[in-house]
């Protein structure tokens, strides 16, 4: 009937975990870089440090975590078969790791050769990933708007990577491209077409699931993805036409669209049936508030000339989007996925179920909420540092510490997995 139906093919635990474990440490590197550089590196998005910081967070933190999550989410949520997940993960992840470090070093130190080496590595790693995921997403018999959002998101990733490669090649070999327009379009596809599209698609499932909210309204899930796609295509037309005066006409509906998503999510959370709060729900709330902050600031960027002409305003927007929205949402997701995967894989070892510790024994709740508080403090300091360069070092230290705590919490969960696994195996031997 449905020969390709993947009903219980969650990949081995090492597949998502190798991505999840690496992600926070790129955040630590970003924080340390900012703390080390200090000064006015957040004064414009074009400083070498700002470019390096952006990619440490976007490619190092976000993309690592999102790739790992997709390996897990595709079989479980949309019944897709990812082709040879261990092989793909073992190839994609180290390549991506290396490419990220080369790209960041190339941007930071202005070394063309490093950029030139990074591009083919990105193309191989992410090209392979995009192909495998696309096949899985197209062959599944499942239906629904999450699936469509994921299909559009993977297209968004492909566009982002291609445009990023052109930009890096242009920098490496010095050929002429419309640098600002190309960067704006690359950024819009990375943040909107890939990250936001994926976050929204995943939210359709996980927001109702984790907190027992009502489902997102059908009109919303039907229109959000396609509208986002159309607006991004319109935004991309700046590559072909010189149309600076039309950009606000495209950008303002885009900002409105993301506000509707954020406000809907907050409303669903507010009216949820499950009243208990945890680090995941709070992280999601921070992410949605940051998204509203981004939308309002984005509106001000286009409508208030004094704000829009200040190069710091784009960095402010960047901090809100990358750190406020996506680092928060991804941290929250990992805090739910990792304890559950620990439990799921432990109970598959065949021990009596009562011998398998429950999810709350995997990461202490206080460690997660404490880290969340530090993350919010780091976010506030980073936002302040955009306008007060004297705060940059402190903000960098806070962000590095917050990401290190996240990484430590995840490492702790994996250590507990190993301890419990060994206990279960030892007791099986003695039975």
């Amino acid at each position, binding site marked *: *009937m449905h020969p390709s139906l993947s009903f219980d093919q969650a990949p081995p635990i090492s597949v998502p975990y190798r991505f999840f474990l690496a992600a926070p440490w790129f955040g630590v590197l970003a924080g340390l870089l900012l703390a080390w550089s200090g000064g006015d590196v957040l004064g414009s998005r074009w400083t070498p440090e700002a470019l390096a910081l952006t990619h440490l967070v976007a490619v190092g933190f976000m993309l690592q975590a999102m790739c790992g999550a997709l390996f897990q989410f595709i079989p479980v949520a949309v019944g897709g078969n990812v082709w040879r997940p261990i092989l793909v993960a073992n190839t994609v992840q180290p390549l991506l790791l290396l490419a990220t470090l080369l790209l960041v070093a190339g941007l930071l130190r202005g070394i063309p050769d490093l950029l030139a080496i990074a591009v083919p590595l990105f193309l191989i790693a992410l090209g392979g990933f995009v192909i495998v995921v696309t096949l899985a997403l197209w062959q599944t018999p499942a239906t629904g708007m999450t699936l469509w959002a994921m299909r559009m998101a993977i297209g968004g990733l492909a566009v982002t990577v291609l445009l990023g490669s052109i930009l890096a090649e242009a920098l490496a070999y010095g050929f002429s491209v419309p640098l600002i327009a190309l960067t704006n379009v690359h950024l819009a596809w990375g943040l909107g077409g890939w990250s936001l599209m994926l976050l929204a698609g995943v939210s359709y499932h996980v927001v109702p699931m984790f907190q027992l909210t009502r489902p997102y309204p059908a009109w919303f899930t039907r229109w959000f993805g396609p509208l986002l796609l159309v607006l991004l295509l319109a935004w991309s037309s700046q590559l072909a036409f010189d149309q600076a005066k039309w950009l606000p006409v495209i950008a303002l509906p885009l900002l409105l669209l993301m506000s509707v998503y954020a406000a809907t999510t907050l409303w669903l959370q507010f009216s949820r049936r499950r009243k208990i709060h945890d680090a995941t729900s709070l992280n999601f709330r921070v992410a949605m508030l940051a998204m509203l902050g981004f939308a309002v600031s984005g509106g001000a960027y286009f409508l208030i000339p004094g704000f829009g002409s200040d190069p710091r305003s784009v960095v402010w927007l960047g901090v809100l989007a990358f750190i406020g929205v996506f680092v928060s949402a991804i941290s929250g997701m990992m805090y739910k996925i990792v304890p559950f995967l620990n439990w799921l894989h432990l109970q598959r070892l065949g021990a009596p179920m009562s011998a398998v510790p429950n999810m709350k024994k995997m990461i202490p709740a206080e460690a997660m909420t404490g880290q969340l508080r530090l993350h919010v403090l780091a976010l506030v300091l980073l936002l302040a540092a955009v306008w007060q360069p004297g705060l940059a070092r402190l903000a960098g230290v806070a962000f590095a510490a917050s990401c290190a705590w996240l990484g430590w919490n995840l490492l702790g969960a994996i250590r507990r997995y190993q301890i419990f696994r060994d206990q279960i195996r030892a007791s099986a031997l003695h039975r």
Partner: protein
Amino acid sequence: MSITAPLSQHHKHCDDIFARAEEACANGEWASGEEAFALLANQLETHFTSEEELLFPAFENATGMTSGPTEVMRGEHVQMRDLMAQMKEALAARDSDGFGGAAETLLILMQQHNMKEENILYPMCDNALGASDIGASLVDRLKAS
């Protein structure tokens, strides 16, 4: 209405009871927690047996698929029953951490189980069993509880 629509609605009904039981036990309101938990146990058991005794065998007969999705779903029912047993034990011991941990695990397992049923298995059942009268029997079972 499709054959499996009452089962999807019943998932939401169980979610509501779950939220009540979890909240009460987290706040140390043991009497109301026990009441909500007993109702949850009853409703989940009714749901599981309706599927295991009526829907799944009918699907397996109609399609010949005995080792596919229904097998996975039966396995997850066993896991959920086990987590319910852990919750019951924690409730008896007035152990809110133990109850909360098992409840959190049950919630995620239950939600992703429901997601697989509602998005994949139920549509397959509706296709395979469209001509049968199994829908009425399912409704009777769920109503009787």
